C-alpha cells in the first residue's frame, strides 16, 4: 500500500565528502566517456564535495585534453558552480518577477534578518548560505525558495520562522 509509481522526493541537509584527489579522480573517470563531459563532471564533483576546488581544474583539463584556462572558464561562467565550500544549509530564494509580484523583495529582507546573513553570502559561522535564484517554475505559488534542496512554495514569514528554527536546532527544513 505504499504510494507507488514515483519517487519520494529526496531531500536532506547535504552531507559532503572531504576533498580528496583520489575520489575526485574517480568521479572524473566515471563521467569522462560522455559527449561534452565538462558540465557533467563539474556537477558530479560539486555533488560530491559541495564545491569544485581549484585543484580539480588541472585534473579535469588533463582528463578531457583541454587547457586549464578552458576548464576554469567553464567553472566560472555558470552561476551554479562554487569554488568555495557552502554553508551547512543553503537557502536559494527566488528573485524573479513572479515572486516579486507577491512581495518577494520584502520577504528577502526578512530572510536576511532572520537568518543573519546577506543575500549572496555565507554566515561567518558557516551555518547558512543565502543566494538568489531566478525562477523555480513555482511562479503560480510564489514566493518560492529552495531550502536544503527542498522546494518551498507560498513562502511567508511563518515558513521563514520555521526554517530559521530548524537551522538553529541543527535540523534540515522538512525533516519534521
Amino acid at each position: 500500500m505504499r504510494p507507488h509509481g514515483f519517487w519520494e522526493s529526496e531531500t536532506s541537509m547535504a552531507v559532503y565528502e572531504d576533498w580528496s584527489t583520489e575520489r575526485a579522480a574517480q568521479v572524473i573517470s566515471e563521467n569522462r566517456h560522455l559527449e561534452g563531459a565538462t558540465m557533467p563532471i563539474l556537477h558530479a564533483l560539486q555533488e560530491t564535495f559541495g564545491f569544485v576546488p581549484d585543484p580539480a581544474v588541472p585534473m579535469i583539463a588533463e582528463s578531457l585534453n583541454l587547457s586549464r584556462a578552458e576548464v576554469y572558464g567553464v567553472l566560472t561562467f555558470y552561476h551554479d558552480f562554487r569554488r568555495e565550500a557552502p554553508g551547512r544549509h543553503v537557502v536559494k530564494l527566488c528573485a524573479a518577477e513572479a515572486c516579486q509580484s507577491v512581495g518577494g523583495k520584502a520577504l528577502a529582507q526578512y530572510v536576511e534578518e532572520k537568518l543573519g546573513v546577506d543575500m549572496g553570502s555565507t554566515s561567518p559561522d558557516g551555518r547558512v548560505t543565502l543566494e538568489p535564484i531566478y525562477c523555480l517554475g513555482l511562479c503560480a505559488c510564489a514566493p518560492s525558495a529552495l531550502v536544503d534542496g527542498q522546494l518551498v512554495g507560498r513562502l511567508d514569514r511563518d515558513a521563514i520562522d520555521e526554517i530559521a528554527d530548524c537551522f538553529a536546532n541543527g535540523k534540515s527544513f522538512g525533516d519534521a
Partner: protein
Amino acid sequence: MKSPRIFVPNDATAVACGADRVARKLEAGLLARGITADITRNGSRGLFWLEPLIEVETERGRIGYGPVKPSDIEDLLHAGILHGADHPLCVGLVDEIPYLKKQTRLTFARIGIIDPLSLTDYKAHGGYRGLERAITLGPSATVEEVVESGLRGRGGAGFPTGIKWRTVAAAPADQRYIVCNADEGDSGTFADRLIMEADPFCLIEGMTIAGLAVGATKGYVYSRSEYPLAFVVMEKAIEKAREAGLLGDNILGSGLSFDMEMRMGAGAYVCGEETALLESLEGKRGLVRAKPPLPAHKGLFQKPTVINNLVSLATVPVILDKGGKYYRDFGMGRSRGTMPIQIAGNIKFGGLFETAFGIPLGELVYDIGGGTASGRPVKAVQAGGPLGAYLPTHQFDTPFDYEAFAAKDALIGHGGLVVFDDTADLADMAKFAMEFCAHESCGKCTPCRIGSTRGVETIDKVIAGEKREQNLALLTDLCHTMKLGSLCALGGFTPYPVLSALNHFPEDFGVAPKLPAAAE
C-alpha cells in the same frame, strides 16, 4: 472488491506546497484504519491554487479535495473521502471544474490524469499512437505532417517546426542530433517542467518521432538545475522506455534506432538561447554563436541538429496521432493549434491553461485567472518572460496570437503571464530587467554587456530625479542601441520590458503621463 485509487500529485508545485507530507499522512491514516487503498502519485492537473489536490476515484468520476494540508487528512478520512463524501475542501468532480473544462488540452491531455512513470497508463491514454503512425508514414511524410499542422516553435521565436525539420533532414551528415531545449528560464513559465514531471513519455515519444523524421539517432534534453524533480522523473522515464524497447535499437520493430540522455544546465539564463545551449552541451561556456551557420546545418558538435523547445516536441505525438489538419484547425491567423498559457504572479487562480490561440489577454487575467491574489486592481501583465513587455490594462483586448502581440510591441514568448497589482512600481521592474540582463549577459557583445549596466545606473538616476529629461533620453537611446547592436535576444529584447514600462507607466518614473491619445 477493487481497492480505491487515490491520487496525490507529485509535481514540483504540489511538493513545494506540502504534497509529500500529505501523502505520508494519508498513508498513515489509511493504515491506522486498516484500509487498503492504492495511492498513486500523479502529476498536477495544472490547477496550482488547489495544490495539493487529492483526487479519489469513485463511480461518479474523480472527486477532488484541495488545497489539502497534512492536518486536514484526519478530518477528510473521517468525512469519508474514499467514497467521495462532501467536505469544505471538496471541489467536486475535477473534470467539471470550469478552469479545466474551458481548456482545449492537446499537448497536456494526460497531465494529472496518469501516473507519470506508468507506460501502461501512458498507452491507455493514447500514448505511442503518434510514433506508430510516424513509422507507417515514414520520415518525409512525418515531416510534412508537422509542416501541415502549422506548429510554430513554442520556445519564443515561433519558427515553423516542420520547416526546421525539413532543413535538418536535407542536410548531408553521418550523424544528426535532436536537442530538446528544456531550459525554461522565464519567470512565469512552467509548461516544460510540467510535461517532464507529469507526462515524461510524451516528450520521449516526441523526440523519437523527431529522430525518425530527420534521421537522428541521438537526443539530448538540456534541463535547468532549478528543476531537480523534473530531472529525476525524466531519467527514470528514459530508463523505463529503454527497458520496454521504446528507446534503443529497432524501436517497435521498425528498424529505427534512437536513444536519449538528460543533461543539466548550471544556472545560466543565456543557455536557453539555442546556440549557447549547444556550446554548453559541448562542455563550454554558454557563449552565443553567430548565425549562420544555423544549428540545422551545423549544430551540436558541428552536426545538423534539430533544436526545439520542449513543448514543441511534446506536441508532435498528438499531431501525428490525430493528423496535421486536425491540429491546425485550432487557433487564429498564423498562430495555429493550442498554447499552454501559464498564468502566474499576483493572481487568484494561477496555473496552466491550454487553449487555442486567439483568446483575449483580459479574459485570461480576469475570467480565467480571477484577477489578483491580493484583491487589488490589476496594474500590468508581463508577457513572455524577463525579455517581454509589460502590458497595461487598456491593452487587455489583445488576442493571444504571435502577430497581435508583436503589433503591440510585445511578445508571447514561451506563454508565461505574470500579473502585477497596483502596488507594483514599474520603474523598479524596468530597472530589474536591466539588472537581469547584466547578470545573465554572456559577455560577447558590448551593447548587452556594458549597456545593461549603464541602463541600471541611468534608471537609478531617473528615479532619483537627477537630470530626468536627459537621462530619459539617454535611456531610450541606450535601448535603441541594445536592440540594434546585440547578437542575441537577451540584449536585443531587454528594451521591451524597459520601454513598455516607461511608455505605459511614465508616472512611476516621475514623468507626467502622456495624453491618452498619444499613449497608443
